[in-house]
């Protein structure tokens, strides 16, 4: 058992890749079942993380470490805390659904497709558990390769342009982060006498942090650029609509569900604790950008004629909340942000999946082609309704909890911007409900829509877990908070916001 626990993260990370490698030996048509089985096994295995993680215990658990490149102080070290645990669970939870959802849509080069999906999962999980900046960078970049092919081979008309844009945007950001990692590792050498890229060692490095363009400020910008592109934060979001619209459904789901979270996670794990002073300096810059993203994303989403593009811009808006929650620099905002990342990882994939289902039936994503779908696809309409409401943050659904906490936190940090951000909630309701109305209600004018089939059993199986998760996360958020609270508190402590954490603790005792 001891051995099992100390190798669990490695297993979770590399099992999908190994599974995929074995899968390449199977006949082309059976690979999808094999991949599905693999993703289920990984999901079940990942539940062990939930039961095994003790929020009162050490900050990072399930640690493992092995020497990798001793000359550069690089170790293969993995570990997780409450924040990464939920993100890993999100990844392993979405993976089987994504594979199941591709059963019909993907017929070309199936073997490569499922191999790439599983390889992608390895990259994502690895990035969430890496405790060494070098290792993190390796996973972070390696992840791009499968995604690039997924968009470029199985995508829509403009897929090549979208894939290229996605790759180059992300690459430019992360290369500057690489320079910052070098610099930090070298500073560690100067201050402590040995090379190290271990995250916990780099946390200890002291850097000059006064002003916007101090050492810390510049390093922070290098990291923040990589993460802001991934989030994506206005004005670096332009790759996202292209990538989402062109990607196959599974690609969009993974992109929205997990890859965007990588940006938020990067801020939490790297940018914040490494450069506390710079974060404080740039706090308002990012609050402003985040607020712009919320409102701008919502406005642009409103006028989209294409459903997928609409959902893509809604992602820009929703991820804007994550950014302002984090940069509120208080525990309420940060908790809300982490929660919002999970929410967005549940509700946006559901929307993408459903748009994909419509697309498989009609081969168009234009809103004006639909109308009155409720009459022919009642079950689908119910599912779409729940996902829509979750996306507009109706109380009782997951979206509400996250956005409420974020706005509360943001209000403490900057009331003016919080008011601006709150208007995003209203616009969010406008664009989502308006789309719902145009697609689902009204007369069934288009003759081609008259013989649409309702959800198949397979599609229902894909959507049900997501819909259930939306309600559960909306009703019993404490189940999730329990395991992440201490990690969020630790994060803020590292960021130098001790007093805020203390306040929360006192309030809790008072209750």
């Amino acid at each position, binding site marked *: 058992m001891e051995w099992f626990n100390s190798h669990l993260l490695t297993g979770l990370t590399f099992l999908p890749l190994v599974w995929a490698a074995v899968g390449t030996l199977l006949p082309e048509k059976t690979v999808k079942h094999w991949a599905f089985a693999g993703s289920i096994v990984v999901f079940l295995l990942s539940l062990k993380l939930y039961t095994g993680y003790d929020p009162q215990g050490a900050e990072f658990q399930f640690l493992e470490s092995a020497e990798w490149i001793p000359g550069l102080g690089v170790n293969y070290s993995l570990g997780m805390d409450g924040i990464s645990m939920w993100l890993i669970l999100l990844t392993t939870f979405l993976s089987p659904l994504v594979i199941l959802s591709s059963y019909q849509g993907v017929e070309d080069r199936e073997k490569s497709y499922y191999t790439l999906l599983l390889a992608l999962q390895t990259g994502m999980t690895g990035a969430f558990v890496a405790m060494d900046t070098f290792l993190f960078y390796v996973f972070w970049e390696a992840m791009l390769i499968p995604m690039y*092919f997924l968009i470029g081979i199985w995508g829509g008309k403009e897929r*090549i342009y979208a894939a*290229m844009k996605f790759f180059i945007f992300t690459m430019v950001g992360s290369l*500057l982060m690489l320079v910052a990692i070098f610099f930090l590792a070298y500073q560690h050498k100067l201050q402590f006498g040995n090379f190290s890229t271990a995250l916990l060692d780099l946390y200890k490095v002291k850097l000059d942090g006064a002003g916007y363009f101090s050492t810390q400020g510049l390093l922070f910008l290098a990291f923040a650029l990589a993460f802001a592109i991934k989030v994506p934060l206005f004005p670096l979001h332009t790759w996202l609509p292209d990538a989402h619209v062109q990607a196959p459904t599974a690609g969009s789901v993974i992109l929205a569900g997990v890859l965007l979270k990588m940006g938020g996670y990067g801020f939490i794990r790297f940018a914040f604790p490494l450069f506390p002073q710079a974060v404080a300096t740039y706090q308002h810059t990012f609050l402003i950008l985040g607020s712009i993203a919320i409102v701008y994303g919502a406005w642009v989403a409103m006028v989209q004629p294409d459903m997928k593009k609409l959902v893509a811009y809604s992602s820009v808006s929703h991820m804007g909340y994550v950014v302002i929650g984090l940069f509120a620099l208080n525990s309420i905002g940060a908790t809300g942000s982490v929660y919002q990342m999970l929410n967005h990882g549940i509700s946006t994939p559901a929307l993408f999946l459903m748009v994909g289902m419509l697309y498989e039936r009609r081969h168009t994503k234009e809103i004006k082609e639909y109308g009155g779908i409720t009459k022919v696809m009642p079950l689908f309409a119910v599912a779409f309704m729940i996902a829509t409401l979750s996306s507009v943050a109706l109380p009782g659904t997951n979206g509400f909890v996250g956005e409420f906490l974020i706005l509360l936190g943001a209000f403490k940090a900057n009331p003016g911007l919080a008011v601006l951000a709150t208007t995003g909630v209203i616009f969010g309701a406008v664009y989502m409900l308006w789309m719902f109305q145009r697609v689902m209600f009204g007369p069934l004018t288009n003759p081609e829509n008259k013989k649409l089939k309702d959800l198949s059993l397979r599609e229902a199986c894909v959507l049900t877990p997501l819909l259930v998760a939306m309600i559960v996360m909306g009703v019993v958020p404490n189940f999730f908070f329990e395991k992440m609270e201490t990690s969020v508190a630790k994060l803020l402590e590292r960021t130098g916001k001790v007093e805020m954490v203390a306040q929360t603790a006192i309030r809790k005792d008072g209750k």
Partner: protein
Amino acid sequence: MDKLNVIDPSFLTLSGDQLALLGPYFWMIGAALLAMIVGVIRFLPSKWTVFAVAMVGILGGLFVSANQIGMDRADLFGGMMVADGFSAFFNVLFLGTAALSLCASLKYLDKEKLQYPEYTILLLFSTIGMMLMASALDLITIFIALEIMSLSVYVLVGFRRNDRRSNEAAMKYFILGAAASAILLYGSALLYGSTGTFVITEILARISAKGDLMTPVFHLGAWMVLAGFLFKIASVPFHMWLPDVYEGAPTPITGFMTTGVKAAAFAAFIRVFVAFGYGKDLTSAVEGRLHDVLWVLAVATMFIGNVIALTQTNLKRMLAYSTIAHTGYLLVGMIAAPHAESGFAPVAMYLAVYTVMNLGAFAVLSVLAGRGDTGLNLHDLSGLGKRHPWLAFSLAIFLFSLAGIPPTAGFASKYYLLYSAIQAKEVWLVVLAVLCSAIAVYYYLRVLVYMYMREPQADTPSAKDFTPAAAAFAVAMMVAMTLQIGILPAKMMAITKRVVAKL
């Protein structure tokens, strides 16, 4: 005058140990001479006998060199040559390059109807030249070695003698190369004139001991030697010859040149560079001006190489410009090396890795090339992922590695190289280098777009004949090494660090 008549006897005799150290050279020279003989024996099939003789010689040399990597430094021929880890390391590199280039050439030559034994023999001689370059400690020896290498390569470049582009390439390379050699030789003469010695370690010792030896003549000589080497490594502004030559040369020879010739030039460059006293804090002229010039050249090389590569539609030409860009990264390593803890190790590692991945890419291209080196345009690769899944996969790995994306060897070595530059406090140089490599991502990925994301075109040859075994072996080896060094780079870093320790 009397002294000149008496030759020091130690120059003429070699002890048993020293002879053993010369093993790799004996293997190669023996193989080259034997190949010349068996090549003209009528009743033997020259294709296979010459290939076999060459391979035996190369592998023998490779084995002996590999065993010498860990050895201590030993001077040979009164200090004109040296056998140390550094030379053994590069010998392994050159011999490996030669072996794999020969494997990739076997079928290619049949296809081009150029199956002559001279090809193999010239390749062996140029490899011998490279090996001597890496182990020469004397400016004259370096020059001779350079000429042995270059003359053979001039001929090899023009080997497709009925092709206009090949002829043009050979002529261009010969004239410009000869001019560069002349500059190098003249520079060497000036260095000798100002310091009184040809031995590069001795030059360093003398100028360190006596600063006033650094006369204007010394500086002029050093700059000329530098220019000669910059030509050989194809740094901007001495890069103009390279794309035409690479495009015109037979594809396996292009691979051989981008890796072997370049690594040899760098190996000798490193040795000479050390002798200039850069990084030793001798004078501000060397420290400041040399640094600044190299800094500007490195940035210009990276930038120009990458930007021009963006517009290329011929793969050989694209890889030619990418090789210029990689020279730029290597120059970054050269600038940083004396100030970083790892010394020249990142440069050596980068060269080794670059050799592996580029050789692999050219082996793939040799297989794909049609008669007369056609079929190497981007659109000819359309749908390669379906036609030749394994070749396409291998080429993809090599391109990812060239672009420096983990988990490939290209990433590990770039990381090591740029990390050393950070230690040398060249932060802005590193920032520029990574931005240039972001540009590079575009043209490497564009090849993948054609291979995987486009359907085969009507005019592309649909089903090619199967991949020849020797070339397949070469490609598979290189893929394995690219991934192996990429995932576990520690060993390679340790080796390179050891071999540059006593430069």
